[in-house]
């Protein structure tokens, strides 16, 4: 049975995907039930994951290609939560789109299973398969809308994603050629034995891996698709891309660099690369975000800047001679915080744009008159993205910067703090429009229960973990124990 047990969470999600398709085809009158079947599948998946924690049963499986450790478990929970929120937020939109509802939910679920595999994989081939399993549904979803912008977004995402995959595959091939194995810990062993004779080629392989995953993580200079695709894709899908695939990118890149490329002479190289990428991503993302007038585009650029913040933590991990786990746990904390916050913001935007039919920031004027709940929730999410207490976003930034200071990356921290100040300008600019301007149209905006619930859960999470951060911090700390060599 252990084989079934190993892939249980993914299986639960995939079974739900199949059920959704069946119900859609056989019982067209019961379409209202589709999202709830999907939610049930996700809940079952989370429960299965929880049972591992309860049994304290962590192991590797399938010849060492999957590692079911606390790190993977942390991300399983995160992905299940993200996908559930996306499903809830999609209900209205999918109902209005009318067609192919079953396929939509099924694709979201399949992508979710891919993300889960990605966080557990510790073998290059498995990683690549999991990446494609999660990416292909996302390409389709990005082009799901009926308008040309959406089609453009989908196609663009597919083409550029393929290029990124090609680069990634090339990097993996190089790594395999150099070491003769695809299992991450074995790669590390071979590299360690070989010493730094192949260092040049290893650096090239590393860079190709960074380019491939950098596309998913949306870091500079692999970010160009982000604004177009975020703006064009249906907003629930944008939310999924901005949170899910970014988190997965970081999950897998940390595992690869830790488990396969952790040799000290290599980490000396990659911490510098990551530090520079972090600096560039933060600064460029923030500066571009300032002048955006479309809120989805603005969040697109800001997500690039946020990815830069993640990278600060990744760089801090690798500085030789320092405690590994501090930076890693900071990144995990940031992933969870960012998931709550960005999802909350996107769902609020979904609710607003459904009513006013616009994503222009200037149309958010006086929003607090039209819907105090949405305005307050969105403002709270933006405050958290800025990193102002009492929100979970503050702790995330705090721990990232703390890790960087411990790793003697003070210059990066100063740059990060300055960037936080810049980001306050545009995040709080939206807040100002919502609260300090008169609405042009007084008509109130009503939220439907699924959207209301998902926003309430997200903002409650931001606030509760903003005041009592310890449970989340402990979870993140436990998850990275596997890296404590």
């Amino acid at each position, binding site marked *: 049975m252990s084989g079934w047990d190993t892939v249980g969470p993914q299986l639960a999600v995939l079974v739900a995907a199949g059920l959704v398709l069946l119900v859609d085809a056989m019982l067209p009158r019961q379409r209202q039930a589709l999202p709830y079947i999907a939610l049930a599948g996700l809940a079952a998946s989370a429960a299965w994951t929880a049972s591992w924690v309860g049994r304290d049963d962590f192991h590797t499986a399938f010849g060492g290609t999957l590692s079911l450790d606390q790190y993977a478990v942390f991300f399983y929970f995160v992905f299940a939560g993200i996908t559930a929120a996306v499903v809830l937020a999609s209900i209205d939109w999918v109902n209005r789109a009318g067609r192919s509802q079953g396929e939509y939910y099924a694709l979201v679920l399949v992508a979710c299973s891919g993300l889960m595999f990605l966080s557990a994989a510790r073998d290059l081939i498995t990683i690549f398969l999991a990446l494609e399993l999660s990416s292909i549904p996302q390409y389709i979803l990005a082009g799901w809308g009926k308008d*040309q912008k959406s089609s453009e977004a989908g196609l663009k995402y597919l083409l550029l994603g393929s290029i990124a995959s090609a680069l990634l595959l090339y990097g993996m091939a190089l790594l395999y050629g150099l070491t003769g194995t695809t299992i991450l810990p074995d790669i590390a062993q071979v590299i360690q034995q070989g010493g730094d004779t192949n260092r040049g080629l290893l650096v090239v392989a590393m860079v190709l891996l960074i380019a491939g995953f950098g596309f998913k993580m949306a870091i500079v200079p692999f970010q160009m698709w982000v604004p177009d695709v975020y703006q064009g894709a249906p907003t629930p899908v944008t939310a999924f891309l901005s949170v899910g695939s970014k988190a997965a990118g970081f999950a897998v890149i940390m595992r690869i660099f830790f488990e396969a490329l952790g040799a000290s002479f290599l980490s000396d190289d990659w911490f510098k690369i990551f530090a520079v990428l972090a600096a560039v991503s933060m600064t460029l993302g923030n500066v571009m975000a*300032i002048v955006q007038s479309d809120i989805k585009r603005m969040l697109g650029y800001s997500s690039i800047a946020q990815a830069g913040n993640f990278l600060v933590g990744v760089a801090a991990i690798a500085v030789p001679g320092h405690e590994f786990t501090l930076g890693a746990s900071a990144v995990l904390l940031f992933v969870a915080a960012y998931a709550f916050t960005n999802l909350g913001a996107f769902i609020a935007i979904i609710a607003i744009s459904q009513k006013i039919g616009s994503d222009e920031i200037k149309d958010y004027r006086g929003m607090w008159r039209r819907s105090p709940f949405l305005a307050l929730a969105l403002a709270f999410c933006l405050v958290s993205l800025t990193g102002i207490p009492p929100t979970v976003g503050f702790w995330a930034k705090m721990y990232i910067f703390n890790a960087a200071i411990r790793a003697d990356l*003070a210059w990066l921290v100063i740059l990060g703090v300055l960037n936080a100040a810049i980001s306050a300008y545009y995040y709080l600019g939206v807040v100002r429009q919502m609260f300090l301007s008169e609405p042009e149209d007084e008509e109130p905006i009503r939220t439907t229960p699924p959207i209301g619930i998902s926003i309430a859960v997200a903002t409650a999470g931001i606030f509760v973990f903003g005041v009592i951060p310890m449970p989340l911090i402990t979870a993140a700390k436990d998850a990275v124990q596997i890296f404590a060599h």
Partner: protein
Amino acid sequence: MGADQAWILVALPAAAFVVLALCGRWLPRQGDVLAVLAIGASLVLYFFVLHDFLHQRDGLVNSHEYWSIAMHHTWSNVGNFNLNFGTYVDPLSAVMVGVVTIAGTLITIFSIGYMKGEVRYWWFFAVLMGFIAAKLMLVLSDNLLLLYFAWEGVGVCSFLLIGFYWEKRSAAEAAKKAFITTRIGDVGLLIGIILLWKATGTFNIQDILTAATTGQIGHVYLFVSLMFIFLGAMGKSALFPFHVWLPDAMEGPTPVSALIHAATMVVAGVYLIARLLPAFEVVPASLLVVTIVGLVTAILTGFMALATTDIKKVLAYSTIGQLGFMYIALGCSHPDAAIMHLMTHAFFKSLLFLAAGSVIIGTHHNQDMKQLGGLWRKMPITAVTFLIGSLALAAVPPFSGFWSKDEIFHGTTAWNGGWVTFLLGFAAVLTALYTTRLFVRTFLGKPQDQAVYDNAHETGPVMVLPLIILALITCVAGFTVFNGVGRAMGFPGGFTEFVFLHEPERFVMNWSWAAASAVIAFGGVFLAGWIYWGNRITISTRLADWQPGVYNMLVNKFYFDDLYQAGIDRGLLGFSYVVSWFDRYVVNDTGVDGVADTTRYSGSILKYVQTGKVPAYALGIALGAVGLAIAGLVVRG
């Protein structure tokens, strides 16, 4: 209820803030009663805390020992990174909490009358409670991190208060200006806190001070981090060169938020420096910086106040000037003098702002001196209370401002050469000058605008009563410096025997000092009286004719506002527009939108691929990877 439970003082207004912000609109009377109850209860409980504090202190064998009560709670820890939070009660914070709760209670009660019938009545009280809670947390916090949260909380609430009438464009602009200007300082503060934490591994203020005074932090390092922290204090206190935001902040609801900003918020910086003064003492250069910034601020704003005709803006400049005085005292290692001036200033400046508010209401929203004059016949009570406040501000004995400014004069002897004392005296003359000018041109002389004068009337009892209470306090507050008065109130002695840095100092009347500062005050008052009451205003017009450059410079506030605006416009925004232009036109539009326009109608997806964008992006990815690889290979060499 004792000093250990001081956190309750913060919790009450914070709870009121949450309730009012969420559902104040639907409460009876929009919840103003709740606000008064919360801050009133804090005030009452403050006396319990104070009593308990003094009582525990009396238990000591040597009652002159520095006594404090600290409470700790663990907030979070990761690895060796611990966060504790707690309260710290010592004479310094005890006095600050007293000022905040007393002033806060009066403001809240006064607001009920003043804000009656205004839009968003409930929201005003909610923000007011948030402000008071943050301010109390700031002075009670035992660590820099919690202090920083509270510091930001105060900043956000003041942003909301200044921008309260956001329908008015000038108010929205002023709120933005205040927020951005103080944020620049806040970034400095955060950097300073992080630097100190990196050196000591703790946020606890007392631990940091111990480390600094025992030489565990290198002097240069300590100096740099203290300067960053001072940057935060400069922003919050609107010291030169951050002084631009406070006069504009007068756009808030008159005079309530003006008063908050003048008497309560801006002194957060004074408190912060006073709290960290032992560390500043380790590096004398940092004290010199504090003194010089204080002097420059005091003199510069004195001139600006002389060239302004808006009553509230004169008071705003005078506030900055008085803050300069406090910083001078701090620079001389005399927190006792600084905090005493902070206390007396809080009362007489509140009095002046409320009296100015009374003038504004009484003359139907007129606050320009050019149109006032002769009002004492119409508004006798306002005139008398305003006079008392002015005399205190001008430091005329025996009003409270005299005693505290006298203490500061005393302190300046710490610097050799007497130059600080001399410049301080000059600033004091300027203070007396503009204060007298303000009073004379508003209340004495001939009415400048007959219509305004005819319609003027005394304001109602709700407004007048707080004026009288504050005027009485202003008359007597300075006497707390005497040992006998302090003892009678239950303190171990006079003010400087309660708040002190190294050891308590008993107040001794030094007649020559007192005479000198009295001469300075009277001299300024008479000079201004001679010019303005004697209707020799032509002197300033003659100055304008003779030296238009100098005069314009004063009227235009030394052109600082324009300078900053230009810096922001051309610098930061310019940069982001360049980058955005690049994105829009070079990356996006070069052969993109032009082609796209013609192909849009065809509707074929394939044509979108050929807009040039995708290949351009793909090229970007490839170039990025190549660039990274080159960088990676170069780095290793």
